[in-house]
């Protein structure tokens, strides 16, 4: 399923942040978002994931296809690693919950930590668990916001392999990151889409 974004404008706090963004992600491909702090990467990802409405433009092929991994991992500290994953697998209604969970645990080298409460994981381990969550959703399009924060080098490599496997099996991915992941994928620099400041006296319905 191809994700097609046409002429998208996104807003943050009612202010347009990016405008005229267009791209398409076909299965097997990854799109890597680049741009300085505050340019609007997170905002764009949230819009594509359907968490906030687009200000203008259209998003096609996203409905029920997307697994989103945000800055926060959505883990419950008192549940164990396995229980956390199992919960998300059930929520996304995949069929072979146990199998998928153990696969995801293996993917991110979490087996030895499977029965530890998430509260006792280090920051990097938590992040790995948050990424493992993507695998148990069964969704083809992975949207990730700075996935490698607080990961050490070997974990970053492992992560890149998992994404590569996902792409090879027909999935796709959209990743905002500041570092080089060693992934083959199209890069999209958002700097040029920054919304130009409008005239100050353009005092219309939206106040700007």
């Amino acid at each position, binding site marked *: 399923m191809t994700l097609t974004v046409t002429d998208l404008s996104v807003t943050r706090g009612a202010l347009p942040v990016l405008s005229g963004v267009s791209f398409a992600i076909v299965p097997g491909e990854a799109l890597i978002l680049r741009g300085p702090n505050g340019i609007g990467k997170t905002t764009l990802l*949230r819009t594509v*994931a*359907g*968490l*906030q*409405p687009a200000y203008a433009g259209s998003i096609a092929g996203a409905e*029920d296809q*997307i*697994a*989103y991994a*945000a*800055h*926060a*991992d*959505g*883990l*419950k500290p*008192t*549940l164990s690693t396995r*229980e956390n994953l199992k*919960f*998300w697998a*059930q*929520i*996304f*209604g995949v069929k072979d919950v146990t199998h998928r969970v153990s696969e995801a645990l293996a993917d991110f080298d979490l087996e030895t930590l499977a029965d530890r409460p998430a509260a006792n994981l280090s920051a990097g381990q938590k992040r790995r668990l948050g990424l493992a*969550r993507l695998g148990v*959703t069964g969704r083809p399009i992975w949207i990730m916001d700075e996935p490698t924060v607080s990961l050490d080098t070997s974990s970053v490599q492992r992560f890149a392999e998992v994404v590569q496997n996902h792409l090879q099996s027909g999935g796709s991915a959209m990743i905002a990151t500041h570092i080089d992941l060693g992934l083959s994928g199209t890069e999209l620099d958002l700097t040029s889409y920054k919304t130009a400041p409008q005239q100050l006296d353009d005092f219309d319905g939206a106040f700007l």
Partner: protein
Amino acid sequence: MIALLYRDLQLAFRAGGGFGLGLAFFLIVVVLVPFAVGPQSELLARIAPGVLWIGALLACLLSLDRVLALDWEDGSLDLLATAPLPLEAIVTMKSCAHWITTALPLVVISPLLGVLLHLPGGGYLWLVISLLLGTPALSVIGTFGAALTVGLKRGGLLLSLLVLPLYVPTLIFGAEVARRGAAGLAVETPLLMLAGISAASLAVLPFASAAVLRINLR
């Protein structure tokens, strides 16, 4: 959906989950009342149904800030919103979990606290029935309030201010049932109204809560 309910229950029962805190609060409020109004048993008996209802209501109220805010803070709510479940189902499950972990224990323990307040003999049954019928409305209305204040820091007191006026009809009919029951009067009319409010809240408010949550998420 069941998974969500199950997880919420599991979290509530684990350490730090807050199960039992509402119960303890209920107990303490009920114990404080005789200290405040004096120990005459005839007076306590008269106000017992009302005090029990207010205590239950406050205990429900004060546990509301855990319903959605924790999931908001750790990012679960964002992820749940992208899950295949409709947000309406999610908030309904949340209300359900709140009812089971907070309101149901209150209902169960209320006769015991009735004894402390010299509730007249006939009142126990109707007290339990009225709480059983009324607390679902409290949970659903409370979830709506929790959805409104989910993004706010330390929004507890604001939550109270928003939710308590909405609790008024439920409280009036619920306490009326309990009071009439204790006095041996007919309870049909308020009982029907109470059931009606609960049913209507259950049917309508999840949509409002989901809408509110969607606004807060964006």
